[in-house]
């Protein structure tokens, strides 16, 4: 995977942790009135749970934990419902959340106009199960050590361990967390765009022209790619085709939770829940006479196939779907693998660039030549 070349950007070195630095930035932006609201993860002490919060008053920032290995909801999905307000907002996004939002903007579901995006190199998040059991506190120290050493932390989400896009591609402000920050060399906050410069005018820390050196994260990248190989081979059950699918998705209970939490699934009423998939009696009787038996409710597996065709090439592998599956189907792994394969045909990377149009939405004369 070709690492992107980075041009010279003004940046500051961070003396404290990335989380505290971003919190300082948010405080500065809110108090200076440059933004009306900030979107960041928050820790709620009394029932030690986490949630994504929209904060408009700087005094409420103390519970904010901008960089935390927890994703209760994909911020990209939530942004689609608030980004079109006229208000200026700074949003702290993990790389896959930012990429998910880019895919949504391409589908008219939001706009960057009033957003200042702040992202960071990401070490992956823990599954909701652990968050709900309140084990994040104990796992944090070991997690931060792994991340700073470029190793893949244990028991994070499988798609996070296999994620090679952990460097944010087009955020206004990027904070390098993985690989640099804790290794004593101090991590950097880069202001990639004029918007970033304009917003952060007067923010503490003297500026220096720096180039982001991706090679430092080469070790992390190699570890992630190895994990991906392992993950994709594990999802290859005994052969493709219906049997393979049945093995994987046989135990699906049809709750469609995976599509509800998926940032790319923005349809109000999924086609598989609409009247189109409501069969009358002759249908059942005819299929029963032909096949001797059929599953009720029907189309449990067909739903996953349908979702794959509708959105898998835009799947950013955030892992929310696997987390909410009541029967633990590795939905994210299957969608990430299929998605990457399809996108590769069009050499398309979901969320890389908002101007890059969605493969199925565009007709190009010379296309799919290797298949033809």
């Amino acid at each position, binding site marked *: 995977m070709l690492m992107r070349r980075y041009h010279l950007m003004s940046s500051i070195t961070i003396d404290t942790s990335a989380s505290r630095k971003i919190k300082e930035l948010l405080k500065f932006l809110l108090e200076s009135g440059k933004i009306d609201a900030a979107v960041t993860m928050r820790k709620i002490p009394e029932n030690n749970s986490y949630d994504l919060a929209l904060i408009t008053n700087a005094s409420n920032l103390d519970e904010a934990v901008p960089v935390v290995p927890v994703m209760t909801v994909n911020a990209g999905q939530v942004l689609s419902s608030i980004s079109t307000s006229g*208000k200026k907002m700074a949003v702290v996004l993990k790389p896959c959340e930012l990429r998910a939002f880019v895919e949504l903007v391409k589908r008219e579901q939001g706009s960057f106009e009033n957003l200042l995006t702040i992202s960071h190199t990401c070490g992956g998040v823990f599954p909701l199960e652990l968050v709900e059991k309140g084990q994040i506190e104990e796992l944090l120290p070991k997690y931060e050590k792994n991340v700073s050493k470029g190793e893949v932390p244990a028991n994070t989400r499988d798609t996070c361990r296999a994620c090679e896009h952990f460097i944010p591609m087009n955020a206004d402000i990027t904070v390098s967390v993985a690989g640099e920050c804790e290794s004593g060399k101090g991590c950097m906050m880069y202001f990639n765009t004029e918007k970033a410069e304009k917003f952060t005018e007067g923010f503490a820390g003297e500026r220096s022209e720096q180039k982001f050196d991706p090679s430092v994260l080469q070790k992390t990248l190699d570890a992630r790619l190895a994990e991906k190989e392992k993950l994709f081979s594990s999802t290859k059950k005994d052969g493709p085709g219906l049997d393979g699918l049945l093995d994987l998705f046989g135990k699906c209970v049809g709750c469609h939770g995976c599509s509800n939490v998926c940032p790319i699934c923005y349809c109000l009423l999924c086609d598989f829940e609409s009247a189109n998939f409501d069969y009358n009696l002759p249908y*059942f009787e005819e299929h029963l006479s032909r096949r001797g038996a059929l*599953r009720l409710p029907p189309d449990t597996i067909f739903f996953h196939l349908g979702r794959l065709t509708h959105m898998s090439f835009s799947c950013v592998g955030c892992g929310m779907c696997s987390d909410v599956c009541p029967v633990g189907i590795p939905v994210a792994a299957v969608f990430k693998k299929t998605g990457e394969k399809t996108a590769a045909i069009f050499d398309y990377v979901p969320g890389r660039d908002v101007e890059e149009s969605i493969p199925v939405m565009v007709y190009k004369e010379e296309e799919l030549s290797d298949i033809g």
Partner: protein
Amino acid sequence: MTDTERKGAVLPVAKEPGDTVLDFLRMAMTKEAADAVILPMKVPSGDSYAWILMNDISLLDDAVPIVPTMPVQGAKALRSLTRKGPGNLKVIAVMRPCEIRAAMELSKLGQVHSENLILATYDCPGAVQLQKYVDDPAGGDERFSGMLKKGNPDDSAKSVCHYCENFSIFDSDIHFGYLGLSEKEVLLVPGSGKGTEFLEELGLDLKKDLSSWEKGIEEIRADRVKTRKNSFEETEIQLRDIDGLLSVFANCIGCHNCQSACPICYCRLCYFDSETAEQDPDALITAAEKRGGISLPVDRIMFHTGRMAHMSLSCVSCGQCSDACPVSIPVADVFSYVADQTQNTFEYIAGLNDGDPLPLRQFRKAELPGVHELVKDADAEVPSHE
């Protein structure tokens, strides 16, 4: 509801109660009293079950009528089959009492047409919690057979099963009773006119006295009622005020799995997903400005209380909502506690097949006696300021 003078039939003993049920179904299909049956079957990966409509008798060998866990609520399967009408296939469905009760409620909402269905239930000792079963199917099977013997749920079962009173014959057409009986004996009890006719058609003589079986069931029910009271008292403390409610649902991420798993939630698009409930971006942020910040996604408590308002009168506390929750919120306990109160207020029992229409869909002059007193007291206090 058991009524004393009802008689049942004794079925030939087989290895397990489940096998007795399968023998009965084979006999019914060979005699063409039924064209097809709906039964759970193991999925290829072996760690869960799915409802299968089958008319090929040979497939019955792999079916598992008395199934350890409840991946999909049976009423949802019946709804998908009969929403657009009863069709002309005679089908026997063998399900847990709470599944058949949910189907009865759905029939009052035009979602299930049971004219050509024979709804069969069996004594349910409880069901293994779905995630626990999927993680360890073999262990799950073992725990379930233990429950079958004891007639009561163990700690692997769903929380609602521990205080379920309607675990035996309720109002289905036919019922397989075996809890509390000697080893492997299974009684077949008709629950409705249709059920009696069906059994007589099959040539079964319904003469077996059921009193000993019924006494056993009553004993189990008695201590279930006690557990129910304690559990509701606990939930009451948890839900004492809005903060209590907020803390119970604090981890909710708004994935609405509980609504999709619930058999009573038949709406195609939930009101809380539709664009009407969707906040206008500016209004959202203005609301946030008033409080200095809001949690995203917004309206989680509104969703749960709204769903309660819409379906709690038909809630049969089958526990599917807790099973489907990724962050293990005890949704079923909360909804069962509320449903208990709403259904008592209307003196309505969810799932009865006596054609008693849904409380909110009929107007009775004398209704809500409790409320009248409340209103009268309130009036008394307010000085009439004419």
